[in-house]
């Protein structure tokens, strides 16, 4: 079974703090994704990565950055957390483009509260 783990289930931070959210997958997937989920807005893509050290902006990258130094690990960084970044953050992984069966596998989510 594919397993995607996220470093924290719940996190509380203060405005202006630097925040790291870690995601690890154990199935050698090339693609990794970070989404935020807000009520009524569904899932919005922040960043994705299709290979080590490669990254592409999603729909809402402002205020976020990412790092992928190893294939299995994809980190989301909030350089200076703000209250409007309070949300549920979901990490996902999938096989490389071209594979017919590349549905996404999701982690359990990190609920971040910024005070």
């Amino acid at each position: 079974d594919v397993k995607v783990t996220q470093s924290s289930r719940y996190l509380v931070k203060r405005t202006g703090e630097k925040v790291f959210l870690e995601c690890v997958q154990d199935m050698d997937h090339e693609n990794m994704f970070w989404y935020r989920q807000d009520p009524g807005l569904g899932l919005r893509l922040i960043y994705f990565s299709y290979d080590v050290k490669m990254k592409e902006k999603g729909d809402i990258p402002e205020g976020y950055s990412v790092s992928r130094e190893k294939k299995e690990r994809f980190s989301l960084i909030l350089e200076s957390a703000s209250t409007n970044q309070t949300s549920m953050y979901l990490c996902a992984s999938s096989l490389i483009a071209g594979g017919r069966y590349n549905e996404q596998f999701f982690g359990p989510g990190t609920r971040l509260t910024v005070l």
Partner: protein
Amino acid sequence: AQSVTQLDSQVPVFEEAPVELRCNYSSSVSVYLFWYVQYPNQGLQLLLKYLSGSTLVKGINGFEAEFNKSQTSFHLRKPSVHISDTAEYFCAVRTSGGSYIPTFGRGTSLIVHP
């Protein structure tokens, strides 16, 4: 560009009743279609997917969905729901041969009452 519309934000239903969650998509090319379920305080997990072949797709937990190309729809159905089906359901579409990034609908909250 592809888009997904989940027509109902919330669907309340009584236990053992049938349910249909609606999903329409727009795309000018062939698509792959997915339904995911998210139970409270958990991540998403795949319920079922349509890649090609039979338009009726069966998934886990007794759910099924029918791909209708002419209607550009992929509605999710279950003949008899349980309390444990209470969850958020997301429809997603990805174009075949194109970007591997799916587009998600905004979700439908299924609330099953005893």
